[in-house]
């Protein structure tokens, strides 16, 4: 018996159908489990194990390898500041320190209310737009310490349900790695990447 709703199970079936072998669906199913519970729970991993015919321990061994599968509850907003080489050269450490100070949340921790997690991350591929910050994996480029503080205040006060990259870039960003050109609608609703790979289905009887 699945602990997931019929709607979520439908998505899980679509995910499994996109791979020649079931086990390959573990990674997208782990994200799906996170979207159900807000983070990766033991129950979520047990459910994923049933979908791919493995033991929960085998699923845990995979999940624990990857840093984006959060096995403890994070804040509603996961604020990730890059402090790898290119961002460090542009003051990434200062941006991180400013956001820690403004939020009162030390690097890697979550506030008492469960609203904000602040973490430093290794390179997120935005080196031309250093310093790069992501909120729930939605990007802001060209962040300064002052703008980082403003971002933290905004998240605390405005508490957006959907985190939109273009809105945040306009409010808190400056220089970008390249011209983003076109604005997007929508965004992330939790601390996992806003990507639902349901558009592709395998054809026929392959």
């Amino acid at each position, binding site marked *: 018996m699945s602990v997931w709703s019929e709607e979520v199970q439908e998505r899980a079936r679509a995910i499994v159908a996109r791979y020649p072998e079931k086990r*390959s669906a573990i990674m997208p199913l782990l994200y799906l489990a996170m979207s159900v519970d807000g983070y990766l729970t033991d129950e979520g991993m047990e459910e994923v194990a049933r979908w791919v015919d493995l033991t929960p321990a085998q699923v845990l061994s995979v999940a624990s390898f990857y840093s984006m599968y959060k096995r403890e509850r994070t804040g509603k907003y996961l604020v990730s500041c890059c402090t790898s080489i290119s961002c460090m050269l542009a003051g990434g450490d200062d941006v991180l320190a400013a956001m820690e100070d403004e939020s009162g949340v030390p690097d890697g921790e979550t506030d008492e209310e469960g609203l904000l997690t602040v973490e430093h991350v290794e390179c*997120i591929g935005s080196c031309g737009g250093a310093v790069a910050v992501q909120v729930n994996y939605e990007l802001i480029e060209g962040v300064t310490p002052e703008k980082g503080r403003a971002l933290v205040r905004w998240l605390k006060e405005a508490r957006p349900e959907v985190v939109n990259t273009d809105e945040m870039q306009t409010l808190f960003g400056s220089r970008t790695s390249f011209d983003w050109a076109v604005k997007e609608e929508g965004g992330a609703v939790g601390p996992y990447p806003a990507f639902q790979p349901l558009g592709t289905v395998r*054809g026929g009887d392959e």
Partner: protein
Amino acid sequence: MSTLIVTRRMNEHPTDSHTIDRYIATGGYEQARRAVTTLTRDELVEEVKASGLLGRGGAAFSAGLKWSFLAPERPAYLVVNGDESEPGTFKDRQLLERDPHQLVEGIIIAAYANEVHHAFVYIRGEYAKPARRLQQAVDEAYARGFLGRNVFGSGYDLELTVHLGAGAYICGEETALINSLEGKRGEPRLKPPYFPAAKGLYMKPTIVNNVETISNIPHILAMGAPRYAEVSPSPDTGTFLMSLSGHVRKPGNYEVFHGITWRELIYEVGGGIPEDRGLKAWIPGGASAPWFVPELHLDMEITKDAVAGAGSMIGSGAVIVMDEDTCVVRAAERVVRFYAHESCGQCTPCREGTTWMEMILRRIEEGQGRAIDLDLLIDVSDGISVGLNWPPKMTTICPLGPSAVSPVIALKEYFRDEVDAHVRNGGCPFPRSRAHAGVSE
């Protein structure tokens, strides 16, 4: 300095280069249609070989040659590596966001040429927006009959799955990527088998190519291999996307021919260093590459062979520039910290060595360094990468550990005095805050 190839459409049509309508209006999918309906596998492999196209993921290996190595067993798979995680590199992100159909068309041609019926694009987990853009393009291609059953009415079937990683740099290594795609921990595979082309995904013959490599394929067909091979004055054919970051006035991705000098790249293309500060060093090909310094390397022409001849690599094309106020100990610590964090843990020299190196560098930077620390650092590095050369003599399954040694080579060769000064002075002589160092004037 170049003829634009893979960034031409996004430059000429900035507001809609990612849409299928613009793509088709600018000749898109014509080469895939021609390949699938009129060309053979052998003709396509020969065409790509003749183009001289080098892989753009870091190893700069001939793409056509790689295709020709594909073992005859079937099914075979095509995996496009979009795990772009090498610090300094952000070119594939631009290709994915701004011209995703170019990649999809390249995939159709590459898959058909390699008798593949299921292709994958593995995109790093933090690239949510690039993945969304690509998935939209894939959905549109399915809807038009360019993917799925009976591609272009030719009887050829091709499925394409976009797969999201979850925050592990090591999955950019092709055998780790394959393990990850199989639903396993992203640990590189012990060799042999040496090449995924023999035993790759599900132990079947597999081609793994980078996003930029595959994005070039439609253009090779459109231009024809001879013209593509001649477009660049450099022995490295075609154009290269170079990601410029760090202390330059105009960071960004630049599509250039190889053969320009580092001076031209940093001072003309990149606009020089903010406030005309001096140049201290740069990393020529992603964080894994041994560093270059102006006294020795500024007037070197950028080609695969010239850079390799000087003991480094063009790698992923990422150039990270450090000005004269940069503390090289801190910069080295930051590069080493990355590899310590991303080590998969299989091989002892890498797992233990990178962490040890990070500790040594941090204590030097923070004023607790000892006089023997640089020699200790070199000794630990030698345990990971024997002789401290590039390409490395490996003690590990993959090059991640040896990559962490690259900044130590720079400290040993060029910056011994600066390390000693940290130890003597009990800490770092450079300003702690660089909050405005990168901001253009």
